[in-house]
């Protein structure tokens, strides 16, 4: 990208990073930007821990026999992988890092509505994470990340209570972030910034926040009840006194299905921003994309039973859940089609963020379509609890959520740090991640279809070729995740200043200096335009930007 509009860009003298750097200036900061950085540190730690667990899993599965670790240890490894990745990386990743940093700027506000609560949510997150990490250190738990009863409440060994309470606590961090976002979006918008002038990133986060507010407390009380049942050896899910373990699954999935959309909706928001910026076009069908976010959030609450087709749930309820699951494909497809239409005849700039966004579209589509397959009652009975399911949700969570996160991180990195990263290595690593990811998880679709069950440390020999492919892909994927860490950190030492708007993008965040000043805006902005008003070739408008 070469559309630099400044004559001689130079790092601004005062910005949010230039202030005091003593520990309390960071640990007691109320600046949403610094809190975003704190979250970035937090989720990176837990991603590394969860990734380490993934390495162990793929090493074990390279050979058919369970030779690296006993089954019991393997159970603990995949459980901790799931718990760490879901509750401590995926759910907070985009909202708490990029959302925290950008949402107030995008709506022209000086901060989130409740800065102290924002800081509190980070501490709650870290306390929950510390408890889970402690649980990992003393041996981990083997319940699976889903904590199904009666295994979790009665039979599982290990620090289940500690990890459950850790997850319970972290849930409130998610709730408080959602609360902050909802109030901020409602009350803090700049003059002239009507709902339909909001960037789609903001719409995505609004939909996400709704889920965080309405879903998370339900899983919180559920986990609390499991913890109590474990502690007192009697509880509401205990079949000995007439309790129903399937009720646990209802309550758990009432949150945990929509939780998938907590991971993917912010990612979709990121992709909308990137696609518009790098095709120099207004997002096609803006209102449809905006309402599709809300539609996905609402429909997401009506489909949880598709996780329970084989649980003993009523067949009639299963059929209803199956049918509604198909409906989720509609708003999801609207988004995919509209992004594609946005790219059509756009002035495409092949920068790294766009590579991630394109990767997202392809991989999310595969993840989404296999989700429709799994939502079909009959097919699910065949592949339930096989690697087909594992492949499906990794396409959504890694191919969707993580690629979106990386795309957003690359897109806004110059804004966050004021520095440009190495173009060459960023493109190489985007390619490596794409290849490594597909090599890891596509064979798992086949494995699952052939009947390889998940959650076992050994498997019949005929599955070995595909498993070796998958493990090899995982090594490539791992390298792909390490390279960005190196060049992004190296970019901090870079002397070259990124400029306010290295991509020539529109949006309030690109009109302020990089890194932004502590108060974000020197004078409160007034918005007079629709979002994504990129000058079109046939229009003779001056480029928008600073």
């Amino acid at each position, binding site marked *: 990208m070469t559309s630099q509009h400044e004559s001689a860009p130079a790092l601004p003298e005062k910005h949010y990073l230039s202030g005091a750097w003593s520990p309390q200036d960071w640990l007691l900061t109320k600046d949403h930007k610094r809190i975003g950085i704190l979250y970035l540190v937090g989720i990176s730690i837990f991603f590394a821990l969860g990734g380490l667990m993934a390495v162990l899993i793929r090493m074990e599965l390279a050979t058919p026999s369970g030779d690296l670790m006993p089954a019991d240890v393997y159970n603990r490894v995949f459980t901790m992988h799931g718990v760490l990745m879901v509750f401590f990386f995926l759910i907070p990743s985009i909202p708490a890092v990029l959302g925290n940093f950008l949402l107030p700027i995008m709506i022209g506000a000086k901060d989130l509505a409740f800065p102290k609560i924002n800081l509190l949510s980070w501490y709650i997150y870290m306390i929950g994470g510390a408890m889970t990490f402690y649980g990992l250190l003393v041996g981990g738990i083997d319940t699976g990340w889903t904590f199904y009863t009666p295994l979790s409440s009665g039979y599982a060994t290990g620090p289940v209570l500690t990890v459950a309470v850790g997850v319970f606590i972290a849930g409130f961090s998610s709730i408080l972030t959602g609360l902050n976002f909802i109030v901020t979006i409602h009350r803090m918008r700049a003059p002239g910034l009507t709902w339909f002038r909001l960037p789609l990133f903001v719409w995505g986060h609004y939909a996400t926040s709704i889920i965080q507010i*309405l879903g998370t407390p339900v899983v919180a009380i559920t986990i609390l009840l499991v913890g109590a049942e474990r502690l007192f050896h009697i509880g509401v899910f205990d079949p000995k006194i007439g309790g129903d373990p399937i009720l646990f699954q209802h309550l758990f999935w009432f949150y945990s299905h929509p939780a998938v959309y907590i991971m993917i909706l912010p990612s979709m928001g990121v992709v909308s921003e990137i696609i518009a910026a790098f095709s120099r076009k207004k997002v096609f069908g803006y209102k449809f994309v905006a309402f599709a976010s809300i539609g996905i959030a609402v429909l997401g*609450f*009506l489909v*949880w039973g598709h996780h329970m087709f084989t649980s*003993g749930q*009523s067949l009639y*309820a299963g059929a*209803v859940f199956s049918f509604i699951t198909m409906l989720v494909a509609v708003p999801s497809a609207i988004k995919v089609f509209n992004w594609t239409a946005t790219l059509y005849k756009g002035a495409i700039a092949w920068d790294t963020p766009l590579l991630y966004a394109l990767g997202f579209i392809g991989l999310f589509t595969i993840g989404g379509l296999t989700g429709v397959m799994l939502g079909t009652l009959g097919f699910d009975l065949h592949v339930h609890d096989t690697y087909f399911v594992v492949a499906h949700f990794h396409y959504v969570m890694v191919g969707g959520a993580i690629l979106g996160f990386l795309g957003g991180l690359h897109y806004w990195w110059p804004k966050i740090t004021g520095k440009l990263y190495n173009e060459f290595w960023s493109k190489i690593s985007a390619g490596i991640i794409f290849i490594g990811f597909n090599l890891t998880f596509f064979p798992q679709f086949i494995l699952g279809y052939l009947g390889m069950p998940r959650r076992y440390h050994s498997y019949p020999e005929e599955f070995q070729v595909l498993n070796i492919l998958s493990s090899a892909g995982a090594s490539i994927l791992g390298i792909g995740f390490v390279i960005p860490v190196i060049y992004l950190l190296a970019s901090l030492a870079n002397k070259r200043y990124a400029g306010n708007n290295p991509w020539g993008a529109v949006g309030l965040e690109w009109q302020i200096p990089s890194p932004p000043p502590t108060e974000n805006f020197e004078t409160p902005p007034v918005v007079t335009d629709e979002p994504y008003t990129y000058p079109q070739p046939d229009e003779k408008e001056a480029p928008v930007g600073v």
Partner: protein
Amino acid sequence: MSVHVAPLKTYIYVFLALMFFTVLTVGVAFVNFAHHAPKGIGNVLNDAVAMSIALTKAVLVVAFFMHVKGSTKITPVVIWGTLIFMVILFVFTGADYLTRPMTTFVPVMSQ
């Protein structure tokens, strides 16, 4: 900024109404409506009456003590929105239980 404050007597009246409904709900709890109603619906009549009274009391508290009357438009949206998702939780879970063969519900009858 003008300060809107409801008169003292509003609060007193609401409190008295809440007291009335509290005593009422205890009183009718001892009446078995099933004896006075057609077969079939009689069993749920007591529950329905008790829950209606509780709902009425909740509405009084929300409307007057929590100042939803006279607050911004978004407050009722938040309340109704939450209730809708609560209904979703109950209806879809209930749909499972009402149509499930009950042998799968109570696996062990001890003693």
